[in-house]
């Protein structure tokens, strides 16, 4: 299937993979040769190349963010091409590679963002204390980037218009036999409780971490990751039905459509940003004892924790407004 958006996405994935694979190769070289004490030309060359790597990974992250959005958008737009598909869920379900491709995309997005947070801290310590950890992480990112490319190729090449796919109605309906269906079948009362509880926990952890200059970074990171998952579950379990005002419409993608005032962006953008921040704070926490960057990490942790608290409070607020203003009643 030849669509401009598919061409663009495959190009984006190829570019990301090439950048990250090349950066990882350089990382492997650097891990063997890195010697800060030397002012020799070899070390100078290595240090200079790190500028290229940070800029290129920055570009890869930007491309990844735009293409993540485009990937979901494109899946939604392609719905008219498949029998049974009404939105992104249907097209992602056309073959077995759609959802894995999306999940790997999201994972890669988060890891690339965390890498840039580490890079930011590293470049502020005169002894480059995070360099080894940073490049080791990059070595781990490379297979993920290649996996993303592979899944996406398989997904787009395997788009067969004759397939009758199932859409959000069946995937997220409580009767279907899938994990997603289990999520949809969660008692709204339970999901709301879970959502409220972890929301309070993550905001409290962020504020706590801010006052402690980042000493509880790992806690915030862990809670942030849980919160991310819980919020997605909550979207499927009760936020979506409230938005659509339909008790059996659980789709997390239709929220992005203009029919629903693009409310999905209001929800997902702060959620993704706050998760990046929480994970970033946790990733640099192990280096907080290094004298050259301890001040930088404390300052950064305070800033990111504040931002994460505000953004997550925004998520809670938006969900609250959705629930309060909806005409649907899930709870008696």
């Amino acid at each position, binding site marked *: *299937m*030849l*669509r*401009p*958006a*598919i*061409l*663009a*996405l495959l*190009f*984006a994935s190829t*570019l990301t993979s090439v*950048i990250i694979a090349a950066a990882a190769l350089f990382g492997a070289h650097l891990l063997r040769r890195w010697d800060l004490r030397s002012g020799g030309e070899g070390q100078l060359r290595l240090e*200079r190349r790190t*500028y*290229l790597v*940070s*800029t*290129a990974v920055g*570009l890869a992250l930007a*491309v990844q963010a*735009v*293409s993540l*959005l*485009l990937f979901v*958008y*494109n899946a939604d*737009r392609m719905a*008219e*091409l*498949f*029998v049974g598909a009404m939105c992104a869920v249907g097209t992602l379900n056309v073959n077995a590679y759609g959802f894995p491709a999306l999940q790997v995309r999201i994972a890669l997005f988060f890891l690339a963002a965390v890498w840039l947070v580490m890079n930011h801290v590293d*470049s502020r310590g005169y002894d480059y204390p995070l360099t080894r950890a940073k490049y080791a992480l990059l070595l781990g990112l490379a297979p993920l980037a290649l996996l993303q490319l592979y899944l996406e190729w398989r997904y787009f090449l395997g788009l067969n*218009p004759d397939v009758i796919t199932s859409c959000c109605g069946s995937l997220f309906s409580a009767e279907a036999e899938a994990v997603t269906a289990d999520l949809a079948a969660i008692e709204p009362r339970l999901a709301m409780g879970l959502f409220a509880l972890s929301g309070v926990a993550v905001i409290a952890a962020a504020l706590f971490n801010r006052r402690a200059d980042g000493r509880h970074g790992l806690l915030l990171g862990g809670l942030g990751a849980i919160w991310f998952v819980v919020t997605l579950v909550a979207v499927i379990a009760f936020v979506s039905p409230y938005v659509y005002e339909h008790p059996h419409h659980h789709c997390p993608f239709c929220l992005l459509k203009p029919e629903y005032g693009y409310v999905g962006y209001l929800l997902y953008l702060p959620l993704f940003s706050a998760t990046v921040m929480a994970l970033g704070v946790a990733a640099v926490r192990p280096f907080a004892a290094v004298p050259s960057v301890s001040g930088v990490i404390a300052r950064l942790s305070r800033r990111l924790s504040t931002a994460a608290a505000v953004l997550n409070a925004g998520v809670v607020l938006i969900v609250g407004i959705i629930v309060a203003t909806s005409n649907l009643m899930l709870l008696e």
Partner: protein
Amino acid sequence: MFWGRQRYLIDFALSSLWRRKGRHLLLLVVYTLVVAALASVMLFTEALKGEARQLLAGTPEVVIQRMVAGRHDLVPEQYLERIGRVRGVRKKAGRLWGYYYDPTVAANYTLMVPPERHIAEGSVVVGEGIARARGASVGDVLALRSSVGEVFPFRIDAILSAESELVSADLMLVSEVDFRRFFHFPAGHYTDLVLEVANPREVRKVAEKIALALPDSRPILREEILRTYASLFDWREGLVLTALLGAVFAFGIFAWDRAAGLSAEERREIGVLKAVGWETSDVIALKLWEGALVSLCAFLLGYLLAYLHVFTFSAGALTPLLKGWAVLYPQFTLAPQVDLFQLATLFLITVVPYTAAILIPLWQAAVADPDAVMR
């Protein structure tokens, strides 16, 4: 601090671009043309898809054709009763339409009996394309030679509005009596039958039942036509874009070459900046801002050009490539639309390749030795 610095850098980037506007002009022109070409294709196909969607929105959900020996044949009136009462069908009717080849302008017309509009005998309503081709206007008489050789004079009652001319250009609406006489169309027969189905989810069920009731018929679903149209347009668009990707690639090499071929003066300038206290990442940021500003200009200009090309000048350069199944090229104006999805796609296949292409040369320039100016 961060934004303060970026403001200084943007300011300086603007002044650097301005100082070397001659050097950047060629790049900007090529860049703009690349964006304009890609954007034209995308805007045009999207508009065509929109037209098709709009057009089909008014058509019935199911069309039933009768097949004889695998060929499309006329449908006897009785079929309407044989369908009987199928659940979910709101309305059923027979349609009369056909094609007529007009040798004087070497074009095919679509003759049709409109189901809702009443047309008096001897009159005709024609599409803009026919009116243009024959140089006729309202009140004129259109003389057509029928299938048995007699000449039929039709008085033009009205000309269809140009709103969705893509479809109505070659349309000719006549009365049922005229239609049957003109074509010697057997009485009691229709070209095909149409059904309106209330609930779109039941369309497939309805089609299955009809296939059972009328074994020699072929139901055609609107959603299927829509899907075929959409993938056909997508496929054509993709084909043209793939061809254009070669141009994007060439442009990438051009941009790389431009970025790598810095003049001695520019190299000296970077050296001076580094010597007086600019850091490598400041220089990289400066160059990225320059690239971003160039991209912004090229993107906006290119998109604007494409917009004008498609919506004001009716995509003159693309018509033969993407449209064309009729001889009567409609001179239609497409409904303008700007779409975030499209912009993101366009961004990924123009700005991102450009940025990727200049990345390495830009870095090479930025890591110049700060002590070079002292040597």
